[in-house]
């Protein structure tokens, strides 16, 4: 249907006002809010991820598209009813780790996960293990995504995994990590379930972890 194709294109092109208009049009034509995710937002952001991977899109273009997608999700999220908000993807608690204020990477991952249909609980930057544990419990999260830019702060990721275990929540959530100094082997060594080298990889990883 042309409307959804136009909406997808508007997201990819980063035209936030048009995205807002087309989303409202879709709703007024009777489309269920939850259906707009798989019909337009998820495929659009998958295409953005592909372009980023293939070096057609860079950080500015991805930020612009993610903001445009947010123009749609901001309208749609409050309209979701019952378990629509968390179905089919799940709830992700995401943050930049304690001691670290760098949040651009985390914000891009959060926006892309949200556009992939996840419900996002974004705790911001410099977040303690205790706050992450509380948020996982309160929001029944099934994923934790954390980021670090510094070698001095990436070591704090291990404390989060230990705190989740101590709170009896480790079986309930998968933990994924990322950020410039973080590597696959580091992720494994601290007991994380996965590592995303960039935002599109983080989305793929989140999908796989939830499906596992």
């Amino acid at each position, binding site marked *: 249907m042309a409307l959804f194709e136009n909406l997808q294109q508007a997201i990819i092109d980063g035209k936030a006002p048009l995205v807002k208009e087309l989303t409202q049009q879709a709703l007024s034509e009777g489309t269920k809010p939850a259906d707009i995710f798989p019909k337009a937002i998820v495929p659009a952001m998958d295409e953005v991820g592909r372009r980023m991977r293939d070096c057609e899109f*860079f950080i500015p273009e991805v930020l612009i598209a993610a903001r445009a997608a947010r123009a749609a999700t901001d309208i749609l999220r409050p309209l979701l009813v019952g378990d629509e908000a968390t179905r089919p993807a799940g709830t992700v608690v995401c943050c930049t780790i304690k001691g670290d204020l760098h949040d651009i990477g985390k914000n891009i991952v959060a926006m892309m996960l949200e556009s992939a249909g996840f419900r996002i609980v974004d705790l911001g930057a410099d977040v303690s293990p205790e706050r992450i544990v509380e948020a996982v419990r309160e929001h029944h999260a099934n994923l934790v995504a954390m980021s670090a830019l510094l070698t001095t702060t990436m070591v704090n990721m291990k404390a989060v995994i230990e705190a989740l275990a101590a709170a009896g929540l480790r079986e309930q959530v998968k933990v994924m990590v990322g950020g410039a100094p973080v590597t696959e082997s580091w992720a494994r060594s601290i007991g994380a379930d996965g590592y995303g080298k960039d935002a599109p990889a983080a989305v793929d990883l989140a999908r796989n972890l939830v499906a596992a």
Partner: protein
Amino acid sequence: MTSRERVQMVLKHKEPDHVPLDLGASAVTGMQVDTIYRLRQALRLDERGTPVKVTEPYQMLGEIKPDLMEALGVDVVGLGKPATMFGFKNEGWKPWTTFEGTPVLVPEGFNTEPDANGDILMYPEGDKSVPASGRMPKGGFYFDSIMRQPPIDDDALKVEDNLEEFGPITDEDLDYFRREAERLSTETDKAILANFGGTAFGDIALVPAPWLKHPKGIRDVEEWYISTVTRRDYVYKIFERQCEIGIKNLEKVFAAVGNRVTAVFVSGTDFGQQNGPFISLKSYRDLFKPFHQEVNNWIHKNTQWKCFIHSCGSVRALLPDFIEAGFDIINPVQCSAAGMAPEELKKEYGDGVTFWGGGVDTQRTLPFGTPEEVRQEVCARLKIFARSGGYVFNTTHNVQARIPVENVLAMYETVRECGQYPL
């Protein structure tokens, strides 16, 4: 052979007696103050409890005093602007203690306030009557800028708003550069790496302007990146004016310092992230390269200075264009990023540029490796990068906090042992 001659030789791609070493000549080739304190203690340069001066308060870099330079064999000194990233000068020292408990000295304008979480807030020009511009998280080691983005009305955006910091150089600053260049070239035998400011286009560390009390225009980091696409004309006009002002300033600076300076820090804009460039090659060519070319051409035409560019991350795709734009020196050579393997960089670009950095991986080996692993990596990097000159040893970016002092010592010992020519 003097340190200056040693550096000049490698910049001409010739092999001197040994590989020259930089530590602390710029804000991206220095060392975090807690680490300097522990290094000075380990080298028995100070009594226990002797404070170290914080000379760059944003990244909390410490002073590399002449005794430490001599102990390590440092060949380069820095000539920077008199004001720090927070707008106050490095003068009127007072005691302070880092979260690590290290005794340090900070400038009198280093006025902080704890917030409710125990974070430390820092103020532009040390003025607590205006909103804070920097934050160090509780337990942290560095400051980051607090985003002070005024509401953006696209119809009312003025290029001048983003140019407040790029005015004509003051007589006071000119006089400072003149005196310092004179002093450093006569009192030391080191090469001078100067940073006169004003020629980095869109440096994301500078966009939030933590030294300004009321920054105007586009000041939020995310908004700036977006603006490089959505407000391309606006950003281009900023760069155009900045370039014009920057070159006029360089004319005056050159008249004041002459060829006492060996290399000049032209750009610190980060173009790379861990896995690839931040922006497309086309964006670099359309938006940045013309201005890099203009500045570097002026320098090469009028001075003997070499042009230095710093860009973190994976910039392999942009390197040929950096070279074409007239850069002579590439820093920090982040070999841990995608496509930045040392052998390939040296082979493909080593004839055209000097690599300044990349001596050891500061993301992995230096903080988390053993001294033996540090030795092996440093020795291997020297053998690759320093072949036929074209190399100044430095770590990949600043030596960070929480680095085991054994690893720091192992690194400098290895530079001495493996850095003798012939390699």
